[in-house]
């Protein structure tokens, strides 16, 4: 066999180096720090730390506040993923029917993705702040007791909408691409076979979109778990009464506000395990039901 690999011994390493360096600096190093911190306890003045084994994990897992944060996260993630994917799919199927100016609509719908999470949060806060929000005013005037500062469910609703809104554009793009990848003749065959409207969508289009939907499910879950800190921080700050305190938000709160580094590190390790397990679960069980081309 003729060796077609690089004749240069160093070049291949140089070529993969940027990716390796990035991963090491921004993933392996912090992850190892978190692992290290999670088995240490800091003294109140930050002068020394001592090894405590799994004490931090025991403390975290037996803390009712932590279990509460876990429940909040599950509710928040499911709702965010459902709302963002549902609305995106609706918009994508509508955009797929538009013949003229499709690029224009698509460009418009992509904009929210370019908005930073904190800014997205502020946008929704301004609209729905009970003191000054336009929509809050409209809701109240119509007899709806809108007050996310006191009502935990309403606060949850607000952060879900803000978080989902930002992700819709991303999902929309993938759904549009997915829809366009479905051969036109399949839709025509279905229409000759007497399937119309909703029936055609659920029996032909939706199953054929399954790979896209599955991919987005993974991405959106990870997004809801990790990337929504900015939105929650700017809209509710985890309140009222921890009603919107997700796991990530609690990691931040315990570590950087309350300076309980050991507990915070233990929480982030647990979080990492949860997300890895969740993704593995999705690939193991959901993907089986997905049909790839």
């Amino acid at each position, binding site marked *: 066999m003729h060796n077609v690999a690089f004749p240069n011994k160093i070049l291949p390493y140089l070529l993969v180096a940027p990716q390796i360096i990035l991963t090491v600096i921004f993933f392996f190093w912090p992850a190892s720090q978190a692992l290290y911190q999670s088995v240490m306890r800091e003294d109140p003045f930050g002068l020394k730390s001592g090894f405590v084994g799994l004490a931090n994990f025991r403390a975290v897992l037996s803390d009712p506040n932590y279990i509460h944060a876990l429940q909040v996260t599950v509710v928040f993630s499911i709702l965010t993923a459902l709302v963002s994917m549902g609305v995106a799919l609706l918009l994508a199927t509508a955009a797929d029917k538009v013949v003229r100016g499709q690029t224009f609509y698509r460009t418009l719908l992509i904009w929210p993705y370019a908005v930073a999470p904190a800014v997205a949060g502020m946008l929704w806060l301004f609209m729905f702040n009970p003191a000054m929000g336009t929509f809050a005013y409209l809701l109240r005037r119509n007899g709806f007791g809108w007050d996310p500062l006191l009502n935990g469910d309403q606060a949850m609703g607000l952060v879900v909408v803000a978080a989902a809104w930002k992700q819709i554009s991303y999902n929309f793009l993938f759904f549009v691409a997915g829809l366009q990848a479905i051969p036109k003749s399949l839709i025509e065959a279905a229409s000759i076979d*007497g399937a119309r409207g909703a029936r055609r969508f659920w029996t032909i289009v939706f199953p054929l979109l399954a790979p896209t939907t599955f991919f987005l499910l993974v991405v959106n879950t990870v997004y809801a778990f990790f990337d929504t800190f900015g939105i929650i921080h700017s809209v509710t700050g985890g309140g009222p009464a921890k009603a919107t305190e997700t796991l990530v938000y609690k990691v931040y709160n315990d570590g950087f506000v309350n300076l309980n580094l050991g507990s915070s590190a233990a929480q982030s390790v647990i979080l990492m395990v949860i997300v890895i397990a969740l993704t593995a679960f999705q690939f193991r069980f959901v993907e089986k039901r997905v049909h790839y081309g």
Partner: protein
Amino acid sequence: MANIVLNDVRKKYGNIDAIKGISLDIADGEFLVLVGPSGCGKSTLLRMIAGLESITGGEISIGGRVVNTLEPSERDIAMVFQNYALYPHMTVRQNLAYGLKNRNTPQAEIDRRISDAAKALEIETFLERKPRQLSGGQRQRVAMGRAIVREPAAFLFDEPLSNLDAKLRVQMRVEIKRLQKSLQTTSVYVTHDQMEAMTLADRLVVLNSGVIEQVGTPIELYEKPATTFVATFIGSPSMNLLPSLSSSAWSLAPDINLPQGSATLGIRPEDLHVADGDGATEAFRADVKVAAVELVGAESYVHGHLTDGQPIIFRVAGRSRILMDDIVPVAASRQALHLFDEAGRRKDA
């Protein structure tokens, strides 16, 4: 079971006329083939019958019912697509059942029709497989099966064999013909392959840029092509067309009288033979300088030029001993001469 009537059917895309007024009467149980070069509008016409393209003008009726504004599902037709268009996420059985389920056919009836169709098409062994586990030929059969189980008024075929290899294509061609004859279902079949068209059709429609050039049985079209377009399109290799009636490169027997207004002389390669001095079969005579000889087994095609440079092809039975650069005298009988006027229309004496 139904006839299909097209009355002055037109299709416009913006300012472009794709179909320029086509009228056809397709009898109940007839196998009609639409043939023409790509872009001639044959697929558009088929899709208009299916209801997948809107009709700009004219009227289409199936079984005496005008279908212009009906949905494809309401027209009682079944279509076989070029890429088969099988639902990839369903098994073969589900693919066959889908159209029946949508019409609320009882389950027992669905099962009966599927098993009948599966038997006829020999696809029983892979009813539980997904389309991606099937070969091209098997997918083709499933696509046919999906049309058959519907027991529609008409089958529409959109180049169903063009994704198959040559051997399978011949095999499926025979099978489609056999099935259509046994089911007696009116069929419209679109193809660009004149061989497919000739062998399948009860009647052949040659389309060219949105208009009908000629309608007739395959043999009629072969023996009496109405235009130079049909003459060159039907038959392989194409008919030789000599664009002038007086040339020093060839001669006609003196006792032959040509119809008034003839401008083009056409002779099929298979009607030319090496001249042997028998005056009765030599109404036409010419010398050909051989440029290439194609051996195809049972026969050979000789490509060459007349003395004025006109390209010409003729057929020799068996393996030819003619060599490149030979000068060969060729001849054809009076019956083999096709004459066309300036506009390319057939002239008969």
